[in-house]
């Protein structure tokens, strides 16, 4: 479904992603595991096309020069230079890190804004399934999103991505800053939406422990480079992973 070939991303002369090659098959949950500054967010921004927008904005300001080499293709089509909104139209939707929501709008309005590409009836339908997926959001639906807790905002952020009806959902650090209980709820929801709605999911995370059991395949990145890859079970048994991420 998604193929990334030899991807390199430079911010000025700093290399954020270095020669990364990976693939995501339809229906899979793929994990990208790495510590801070490993290049996970840059990878997500590059796949979702946000980097194209960032590059234009920086160029207008005369700021940082952003360069992307390599090839990203989605369902056989080269999308390396496609704009972020064109990629959303194709079905690639990113839920950014630190659960960004529209703070001044209510939960319901947030879901309406995010689903603005879809028909009214489709939004209503997805909204119901979002509340089914995250029952905790339902009592809060009229509250301003800015007043929700971090975990609730994370649920909302994932729900907002779902209203776009993605075929490929990219989650950038969905567990960041959440309590273990909340992490469990979010992980369960990810499994549910993968199994019930058939959405292909890519999760970037530094918390490997809750993520590794649910992924079909995983990639480990360090300093922008791929160091390991394998199925979820293989990675869990890998002594290096155990040492680095489980502290065993």
């Amino acid at each position: 479904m998604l193929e990334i070939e030899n991807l390199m991303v430079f911010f000025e002369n700093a290399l954020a992603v270095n020669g990364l090659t990976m693939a995501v098959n339809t229906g899979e949950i793929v994990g990208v595991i790495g510590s801070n500054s490993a290049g996970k967010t840059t990878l997500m921004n590059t796949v979702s096309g946000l980097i194209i927008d960032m590059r234009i904005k920086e160029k207008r300001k005369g700021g940082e020069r952003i360069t992307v080499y390599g090839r990203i293709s989605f369902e056989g089509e080269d999308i390396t230079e496609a704009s972020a909104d064109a990629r959303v139209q194709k079905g690639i939707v990113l839920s950014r890190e630190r659960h960004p929501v529209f703070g001044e709008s209510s939960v319901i309005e947030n879901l309406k804004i995010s689903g603005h590409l879809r028909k009214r009836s489709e939004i209503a339908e997805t909204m119901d399934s979002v509340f089914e997926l995250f029952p905790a959001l339902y009592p809060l639906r009229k509250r301003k999103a800015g007043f929700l807790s971090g975990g609730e905002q994370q649920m909302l952020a994932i729900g907002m991505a779902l209203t776009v009806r993605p075929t490929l959902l990219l989650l950038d650090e969905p567990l960041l800053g959440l309590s273990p209980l909340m992490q469990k709820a979010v992980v369960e929801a990810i499994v549910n939406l993968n199994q019930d709605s058939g959405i292909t999911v890519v999760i970037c995370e530094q918390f490997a422990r809750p993520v590794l059991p649910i992924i079909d395949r995983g990639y480990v990145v360090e300093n922008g480079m791929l160091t390991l890859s394998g199925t979820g079970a293989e990675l869990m048994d890998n002594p290096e992973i155990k040492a680095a991420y489980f502290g065993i």
Partner: protein
Amino acid sequence: MLAGTAIYAIINSVILALMAIGFNLTFGISGVANFAYGAFYVLSAYATWMMINLLGFSYPVSVLLSILITALLGAAMYRFVLMRVRGQALSEVIATFGIGLAVLELFRYFGFVGFEYNLPVFADYSFFIGGAFVDMQRLLIVAIGVVLVLGLWVFTHHTSLGLAFRGIAQDERTALTFGINPDKIAMLAVAMGAGLAAVAATVIIPLGTISPEEGYDVLIKALAVCIIGGLGSTGGVILASFVIGFAERFTDSYIGSHWTMIVSLAAILIVLAVKPSGFFGKQKELEERI
């Protein structure tokens, strides 16, 4: 006298709100402070005048065409000038102010000044309400102002494009992840702001004449109202219009007409001293609470 003054104060407030609402919409959504706003206001009035008097178009056709043309010019200004300097507030202000200045001074240079440059009123009769004569035009201004504000509210809360506007206004990058293109929305926001300036000119200009000064005047009033209300907040614009509108009219009736300008400037100073973000500095309020 009190009732009459109050009625004129309400009319004055609605006029101020109409003048400011387009500027506020553009700024609230795209963050572009369109200093060419006054020029769009005057330009649309001249366009209507020319279509009626030189091309012989009927009044409604001229009005609709000039609103459309002004909106298109707004979009063109964004696409060809503002987009290149987007995100740099100072450059945006200089670019728009320069364009506005050029347009207004060109009209002056070509001699578009005088009493013959005015627009027709909708209906020429008046009522006697609360001890004062109120003409139909002023009542229509109030009605159109109310309809416009309600229409904008419905637009931003219940249409898919309006919701996209609100998304961009709050967080551009997040909105982009849902397929909302910031440049497209900003272009539409500038165009709509210019179109609203044209609507305001259509209903307000018939009370006076068209002149380049009117452009500067409208820009200053729009800025004053928006700053007092809290930039980008529609509720703030309405409240601020009423504060300035009432202050001006009551000063005019009870103290002296030469004090009106000072009163509105004093109102700006006081509000900025007491609450620097304006009446509804909404984002700031939210940030303080969490």
